[in-house]
């Protein structure tokens, strides 16, 4: 009965939404399915095989690219999470901060500019001051453009946290550092964690900047995959893609669960 006159219901939305989710996941499913294909030609199915996974795991160029990506992402994540944490504390909790809005815009600047513009600008900078080391170039650039992704969740968390907790801590004889260590940091930790996770994934996923800044010896994973795609789709590429898709989906799920748990605990 309730649905017959439910004014909030628009007919056709259900089937449309089902189609939408099929559309979201079908392309990923296609990659995964073909990765188990024995045939050499990526698009033609013969029979089930794991051979492309074993050849992917023995691919040293792939492993090296993975190492470069992990190194850059790990350093960049630490740097930009610390930068973002300091900035969020100053912007949200600081007293008498002049140019508060401007300071926040500076932190978020990478979101406002097209990445390709930033990438070529950084390329020119590094060639002018002659920085040749690929990992250093990538780490600096990634730290900069990942900072807003670390900043936004931390900022949101800090803003949602009542000042009462920090005041209660000071009231109970804790100095500033103790308050930060024992009250502020544990309470904003879910934000810090999801910020760091986001920054890590964005860094791992980056193609535009890495493609311009990486050097011969320091190819990142997406840049390596791009070169593989350019040289023709191969079933091994499907296996690599499947592994990477799985890894990022697991990481993202963990990040979302931690954030959700944090929200519930402190409700």
């Amino acid at each position, binding site marked *: 009965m309730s649905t017959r006159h439910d004014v909030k219901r628009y007919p056709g939305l259900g089937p449309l939404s089902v189609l939408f989710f099929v559309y979201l996941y079908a392309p990923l499913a296609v990659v995964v399915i073909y990765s188990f294909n024995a045939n050499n030609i990526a698009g033609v199915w013969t029979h089930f095989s794991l051979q492309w996974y074993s050849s992917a795991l023995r691919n040293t160029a792939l492993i090296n690219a993975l190492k470069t990506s992990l190194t850059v992402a790990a350093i960049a994540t630490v740097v930009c999470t610390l930068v973002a944490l300091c900035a969020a504390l100053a912007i949200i909790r600081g007293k008498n901060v002049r140019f508060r809005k401007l300071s926040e815009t500076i932190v978020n600047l990478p979101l406002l500019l097209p990445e390709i513009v930033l990438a070529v600008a950084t390329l020119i900078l590094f060639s002018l001051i002659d920085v040749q080391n690929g990992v250093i170039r990538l780490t600096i650039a990634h730290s900069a453009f990942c900072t807003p992704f670390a900043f936004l969740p931390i900022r949101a968390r800090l803003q949602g946290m*009542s000042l*009462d*907790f920090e*005041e*209660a*801590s*000071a*009231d*109970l*004889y*804790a*100095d500033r550092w*103790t308050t930060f260590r*024992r*009250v502020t940091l*544990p*309470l904003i930790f879910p934000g810090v964690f999801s910020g760091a996770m986001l920054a890590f994934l964005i860094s791992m996923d980056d193609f535009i900047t890495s493609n311009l800044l990486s050097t011969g010896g320091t190819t990142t994973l997406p840049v390596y995959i791009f070169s593989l795609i350019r040289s023709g789709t191969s079933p091994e590429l499907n296996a690599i893609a499947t592994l990477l898709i799985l890894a990022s989906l697991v990481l993202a799920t963990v990040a979302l669960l931690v954030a959700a748990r944090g929200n519930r*605990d*402190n*409700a």
Partner: protein
Amino acid sequence: MNQSKAIEVKSVSKYFGAYQALKSVSFNIGSNEFFTMLGPSGCGKTTLLRMLAGFESPNSGSIQLNGREVVAIPPHKRRVNTVFQSYALFPHMTLEQNVAYGLENLGWDQTRIRNRVGEMLERVHMSQMAKRKPAQLSGGQRQRIALARALAPEPEVLLLDEPLSALDLKLRQAMRDELRTLQRDTGITFVFVTHDQEEALDMSDRIAVLGGGEVQQIGTPTEIYEEPVNRFVADFVGETNFLDVDVVETAAGQATIRTPFGVALTVPATGHAAKGRAILSVRPEKINLGDQAQGVVFEGRITNKNYMGGYTHYTLDVAGTELRASRRNASREGDTIPLGATVPVGFVAGSARVLAA
């Protein structure tokens, strides 16, 4: 009781931008006193409390805690603890850890902390929940833990910022008694902030009524209710009737006044003694109706009545002036005066109060 001063506030002013939240406020709070700051929102009471805790500093003036100037001392170095309106229990710590927090920061040793935490949880009847987290507690239980946490370090003064406002009515009544007992047992000075006059009258040794950033009156609950010094206090605390009157003569502590409906009477001139225009404040329960009318008696017509169960509110028209009276329904037939009836109305002159217009 007030032999020694726990807190001395002297000419404290506070601006928020151009807005003056406190206008040169001064008062003292005695040791072991249950002192309440009462006032409407925006009167400056919370600002004052936050200054005592150290979260705000005055733009000018001085605050002394047991004879020591504290304005420049940060909150974590003041032996003052606060029960927050939101309780501010640390959600990531167990109740035990919450209560121990202040003691750890004071550098107590582990055994002493454990004993004190146990003792405090016992005192607020929460021992069996020591390992729980605040999210698992009811409002009343959170309130108790907040109290235990603030009292554990044996502060010189306990500050309470509307701690009962989040509780439901029945619980609030029980907590009032519990707070009062706790204060008597510990002998710690309590500074309580509320906008609820009933709470203030019920619990306090003394009340400071604040309004418009100024102290309007300081006194015992009876003084505040029965002898308000100005229109603001009479109006904010309890209900009252204000009548425009003329003071025609004052002599020997007595004032002779003329009321708008013609009756002249003599009342004690404790509040206001100048001749000319003034107002007379008479509480509704001091006005007697019908066969109970005594003191100054005149006549009024019932224009409205509100049956409240325990008592009935009547609105009267007395020669064009509106008066409100309330009458206890002492028997089943208490509410007997019909709407529109003209009845004798009276009040005892001593229960009315002349105030500046």
